[in-house]
């Protein structure tokens, strides 16, 4: 169940137009939007989509996926998403209404992050990772404190 939601927020000349795109790797509908000056793309996915086992892979399979052409208020738009390293790297606008100056959006700020409340675990562990426990600075600080105490 690989479902990618791509929200493209477009700042259009007259008011903003927000299109929510539902995008499936095996060519499913893609909606669209008109660009004028700036395109900001964001992607998110449901937590269950992360099932891969290889260390280098991400949420999605690498490759190029083309969405279907969708009619919008300003004309027809068709986009292509390029997945690289398991993450969306680029969105190409294959078709877009005239007047737009951007035909490719490189997805820079595109991290996909999940959230949860931390919860105490009781399972047995071999080792624990935590911020550095250092004794030397403590020892030095203590010894300087003790030196002062002697004065």
């Amino acid at each position: 169940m690989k479902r990618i939601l791509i929200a493209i927020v477009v700042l259009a000349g007259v008011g903003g137009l927000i299109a929510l795109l539902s995008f499936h790797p095996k060519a499913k509908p893609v909606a669209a939007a008109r660009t004028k000056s700036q395109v900001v793309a964001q992607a998110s996915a449901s937590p269950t989509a992360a099932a891969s086992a290889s260390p280098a892979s991400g949420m999605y399979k690498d490759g190029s996926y083309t969405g279907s052409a969708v009619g919008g208020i300003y004309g027809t738009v068709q986009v292509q998403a390029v997945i690289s390293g398991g993450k969306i790297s680029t969105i190409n606008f294959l078709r877009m209404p005239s007047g737009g100056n951007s035909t490719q959006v490189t997805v820079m700020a595109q991290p996909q992050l999940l959230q949860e409340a931390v919860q105490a675990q009781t399972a047995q562990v071999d080792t624990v990772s935590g911020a550095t426990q250092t004794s030397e600075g403590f020892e030095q600080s203590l010894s300087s404190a003790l030196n002062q105490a002697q004065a």
Partner: protein
Amino acid sequence: MKRTELVMGMPVTVELAADGGEAEAVVTAVFDWFVEVDRTFSTYKAYSVISRMNAGTLRRRLPAAVRTVLAAGVAMSEATGGYFEMRRPDGQLDPSGYVKGWAIDEAAGILERRGFRDYCIEAGGDLQTGGHNAEGKPWRVGIRNPLQPGEVVKLLHVSNAAVATSGTYERGEHIYDPKTGRAATDIASVTVVGPRITWVDVAATAAFAMGGEGAEWLARQNGLEAYVIGHDGQATFTPGLSQYL
């Protein structure tokens, strides 16, 4: 077998899935290595190469290990956009943020060259694993709760992977944002998982210094997964972390 010693100013634990005289000997060699690293790089020991460089009293050519580490420091600074630096705000050279991870990585090399491929080397909360634990399973690594240090809040299963955590607990606010010189405090701890401890450790330190931007930066790094804990008890993590759960 498992041995813990206090070296480099912190508890260091080396665990092998194997037992016996040969295992004991190689673990001794690993601790000898850590002692040598400490003699060369400690900023607490006046006779170390780094202390003498800072005091301007070093009268000999830099040892190869120091040149290696300093060169890596330049590369790591570039790779983190300046968020990882080997100089303190006061200009003093302090490579300890890199040296620990590098020393662990070299120690793993000592073990592997002698044929020990199932190990866990942990120094001050950062670790590199190889192969499996004595039960033949991936090493079980708990993430300490920065808000409740006696508590583990996440369990990771790692094999041939490294885990490092940067945070404010244990020593107080000890990581500075090199760009502002101020202590980084936006988040309580950053835990990073990836193939090798050297880069994993640097990435955790840099991400912590980035504060709120750290998690997003980590998500863009190939091969790294992250678990970031905020002061509010909320964790932000990369979806790829699931491969270690």
